[in-house]
């Protein structure tokens, strides 16, 4: 009996809440139409009047249990609403759209790679590590789809039309420029095949792998024509555009959440308490670790006067970004110590900074500038090393044997060594700079990204220097063909080979580190109970440096795709191997970190860094398409002044109106109004966003007022009831 009443009460509690909430029009983000407002007592007639103006509710979103939902559905089906045919058509459309969405979702789940693995990783190691593996999976899919694109439009037509087809332009050009003989001379030993595989020369050079093998042919039948060079060019351009769209689409949801939640309430107490539990945690160990993590976060906050601290914050967005990168990029052990004390140290450092005398301030700033210059100098030193290594390697190319292989791989070796050593030294420099911990983290990250991407840029710049003789087409070596034909009879293939070697070396280094460093470390730590071994401890899975490695690998592939069409396929295989290697090392060698939690903003950040790499590759591609003369000895663009010139030439064969239309689109008369239109649309959205922000603030204030009204009314009721009771007492006392 008691439980009956209690159950009624609890049910009513919820329903009552929702009824009053509906009339209050609360400012929660979600629509309040889907609360369980099911009213058993409503007659069908009443519902008709209401139902005609709104769509039937999506039952899945109502928090009722199954039996109730089924009953509601039956009632809905039995009702024959009197609606206009337009309404019913709209409703049917909505229903079929929903069904289509559900079916596509189910279909996509079939193709979800490694979902079980990812779940296990997320449950045991937390969200930060899981977002790295999700990012890796995204890159595998991106590369595979790009490969399908390239295969469909370039590779397969080339294979099919290899023997058929006529040359596009008749051969005009100096004899020396057209000399290109990639096939090896004389007897080829067996181990040469292996060396060729590693360096992309020999039997691999003149194959579908590299640019040099594709022909300058156009197939022109009676009712079918296929222009291979044009297809090559358009596929390359479309590949870049496609990757950009894919990345932005992926960023879409994460960006929306990141922008909408803003910087106003990250990390405050109620957020920690209400949202920080991860229901995917598997096992006692992960649960205990998560509990320790939450306890730590609550404690750290407790030492500050939190609300005062946030109110004095002025640059909300910057603080948000710092905090996000702080907590989401699970950094190396040195930075981890910073992260632990982030809030306390921040305040301490601020207090200390405020209490410095002018003299000390000057010294500190001078020290910081000096250290910045030192870090910059280190990075420039690394770049110079890469420059020297590339020049040396290009000069010594063609050497035989193992020594030749080492010379070929010299740039990759120097880049990898630089990417490993320079961040270590920058970490030590950061200790001297004594920035606030959050600033240190950002600075270290920026330096690492800059180092990785620009070192690739330096490599490409050095190659460019050698190919175009420092850009000076009048110098002795480049005068004849506008590029250095002695060293580079087919320069595109050479660039493709460099990118291929970088990719391969990256994979080999990852596997080597796994086998030679991580496994032995685990064995030493587990079996040797020395104090030193315990202090070193099992390693932690550092997400940020792994992500940077992935971004670097993908940038190399993008840069090389124009010159080595099969590179996306090789990269797909490489990333798949990398996934399994990283998973093995994660489960066997790493300990779960104390400070990890899932965030959609991590993914957003990874994708932003990926876009940096994409823009570098785009710059390279645009430059190669527009400026450098293609080799005359090989490739589909020989005898053209630059690669892009095939486009206007092909357009001249189109009809008049199409030509005029295309020229119009490219001209200023079209692009300037388009730009103005975009600005107008953007202003509209900015205005809309600020209006929404204001209405949220207004509604909050309204809620506060209503709360005060409620308290006032409650007090009035108490006063009145006391007044009513007093006469009773006097009456009772009087008796």
């Amino acid at each position: 009996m008691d439980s009956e009443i209690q159950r009624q009460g609890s049910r009513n509690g919820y329903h009552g809440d929702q009824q009053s909430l509906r009339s209050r029009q609360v400012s929660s983000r979600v629509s309040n139409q889907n609360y369980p407002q099911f009213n058993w007592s409503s007659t069908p007639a009443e519902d008709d009047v209401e139902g005609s103006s709104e769509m039937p509710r999506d039952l899945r979103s109502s928090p009722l249990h199954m039996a109730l939902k089924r009953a509601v559905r039956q009632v809905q089906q039995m009702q024959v609403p009197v609606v206009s045919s337009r309404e019913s058509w709209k409703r049917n459309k909505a229903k079929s759209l929903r069904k289509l969405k559900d079916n596509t979702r189910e279909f996509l789940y079939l193709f979800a790679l490694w979902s079980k693995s990812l779940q296990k990783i997320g449950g045991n190691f937390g969200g930060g590590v899981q977002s790295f593996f999700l990012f890796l999976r995204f890159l595998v899919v991106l590369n595979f789809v790009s490969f399908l694109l390239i295969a469909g439009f370039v590779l397969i037509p080339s294979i099919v039309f290899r023997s058929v087809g006529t040359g596009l332009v008749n051969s005009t050009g100096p004899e020396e420029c057209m000399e290109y003989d990639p096939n090896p001379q004389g007897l080829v030993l067996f181990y040469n095949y292996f060396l060729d595989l590693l360096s992309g020369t020999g039997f691999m050079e003149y194959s579908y792998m590299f640019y040099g093998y594709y022909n300058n042919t156009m197939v022109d039948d009676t009712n079918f024509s296929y222009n291979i060079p044009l297809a090559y060019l358009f596929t390359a351009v479309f590949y870049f555009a496609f990757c950009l769209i894919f990345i932005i689409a992926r960023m879409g949801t994460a960006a929306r959440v990141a922008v909408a939640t803003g910087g106003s309430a990250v990390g405050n107490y109620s957020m920690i308490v209400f949202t920080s539990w991860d229901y995917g945690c598997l096992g006692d160990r992960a649960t205990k670790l998560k509990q320790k993590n939450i306890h730590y976060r609550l404690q750290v906050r407790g030492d500050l006067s939190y609300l005062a601290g946030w109110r004095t914050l002025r640059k909300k967005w910057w603080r948000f970004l710092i905090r996000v990168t702080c907590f989401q990029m699970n950094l190396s052990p040195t930075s981890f110590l910073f992260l632990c004390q982030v809030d306390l140290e921040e305040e301490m450092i601020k207090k200390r900074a405020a209490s410095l005398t002018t003299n000390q301030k000057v010294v500190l700033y001078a020290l910081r500038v000096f250290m910045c210059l030192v870090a910059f100098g280190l990075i420039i030193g690394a770049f110079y090393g890469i420059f020297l290594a590339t020049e040396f390697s290009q000069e010594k190319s063609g050497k035989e044997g193992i020594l030749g292989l080492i010379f070929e791989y010299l740039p990759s070796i120097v880049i990898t060594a630089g990417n490993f050593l320079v961040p270590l030294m920058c970490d030590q420099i950061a200790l001297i700079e004594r920035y606030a911990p959050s600033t240190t983290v950002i600075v270290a990250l920026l330096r690492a990204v800059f180092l990785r991407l620009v070192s690739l840029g330096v490599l490409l710049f050095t190659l460019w220097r050698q190919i175009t003789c420092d850009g000076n087409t009048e110098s002795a070596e480049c005068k004849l063909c506008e590029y250095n034909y002695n060293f580079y009879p087919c320069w595109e293939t050479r660039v493709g080979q460099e990118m291929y070697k970088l990719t391969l070396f990256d994979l080999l280094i990852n596997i080597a580190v796994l086998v030679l460093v991580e496994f032995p470390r685990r064995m030493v730590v587990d079996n040797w109970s020395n104090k030193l071994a315990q202090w070193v401890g099992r390693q932690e899975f550092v997400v940020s440096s792994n992500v940077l490695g992935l971004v670097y690998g993908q940038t190399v592939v993008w840069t090389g795709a124009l010159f080595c069409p099969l590179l996306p396929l090789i990269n797909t295989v490489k990333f798949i191997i990398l996934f399994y290697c990283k998973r093995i090392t994660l489960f066997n060698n790493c300990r779960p970190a104390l400070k990890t939690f899932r965030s959609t903003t991590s993914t957003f950040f990874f994708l932003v860094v990926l876009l940096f790499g994409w823009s570098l590759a785009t710059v390279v591609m645009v430059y190669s398409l527009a400026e450098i003369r293609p080799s005359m000895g090989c490739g589909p663009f020989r005898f053209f002044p630059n690669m892009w010139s095939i486009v206007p030439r092909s357009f001249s064969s189109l009809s008049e109106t199409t030509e005029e239309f295309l020229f119009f689109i490219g001209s200023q008369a079209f692009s300037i109004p388009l730009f103005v239109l975009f600005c107008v649309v953007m202003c509209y959205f900015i205005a809309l966003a600020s209006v929404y922000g204001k209405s949220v603030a207004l509604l909050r204030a309204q809620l506060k007022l209503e709360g005060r009204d409620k308290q006032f009314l409650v007090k009035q009721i108490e006063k009145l009831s006391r007044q009513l009771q007093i006469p009773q007492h006097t009456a009772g006392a009087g008796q």
Partner: protein
Amino acid sequence: MGTTASQLGKDLLSEYQELTFLTKQEILLAHKRFTELLTKDEKDLPNTRVSMERVLTLPELKSNPFRKRICYVFSTSEQKDGSLTFEDFLDLLSAFSDSATLEIKSHYAFRIFDFDDDGTLDCGDLEKLVNCLTGETDETRLTTEEMRQLINNILEESDIDKDGTVNLSEFQHVISRSPDFVSSFKIVL
């Protein structure tokens, strides 16, 4: 209706697909895992109710500090003992699934955190919640003073109408600011 017979009928399957956020594979997997919890005799009966202890042997729920509350919230039993039928189990998985909306997740999260089932989160509920989050071991338990301070801070931040408790809309207001909630409020078999 409802079933724990060894096969799920086709109509029943499509009905479940319409009424929950689960895909066909997820429903079939749930059915498989649920029947593993049953004894041999129970397998033939329709609409069997599984006791809370047996449900909590599932590895996904075993170490979750909120496991008992989850069972109580989704249970439709008359005795309020946390036992689940297959349909309750599907409701549970639907609320915790990938494609469930923010509103349904926040609604159920609120109910899970509402330890005394009175429709609001008052000091007692918040205290029990924090204890679940930080664990009950000696080194992670908060002192009384820390707890009091923490609860005051929470109420100051999230109690908009200043009535001393956090109601559903205030709770949803806090949740909507968090980018991680939807992805962390997930249990997948």
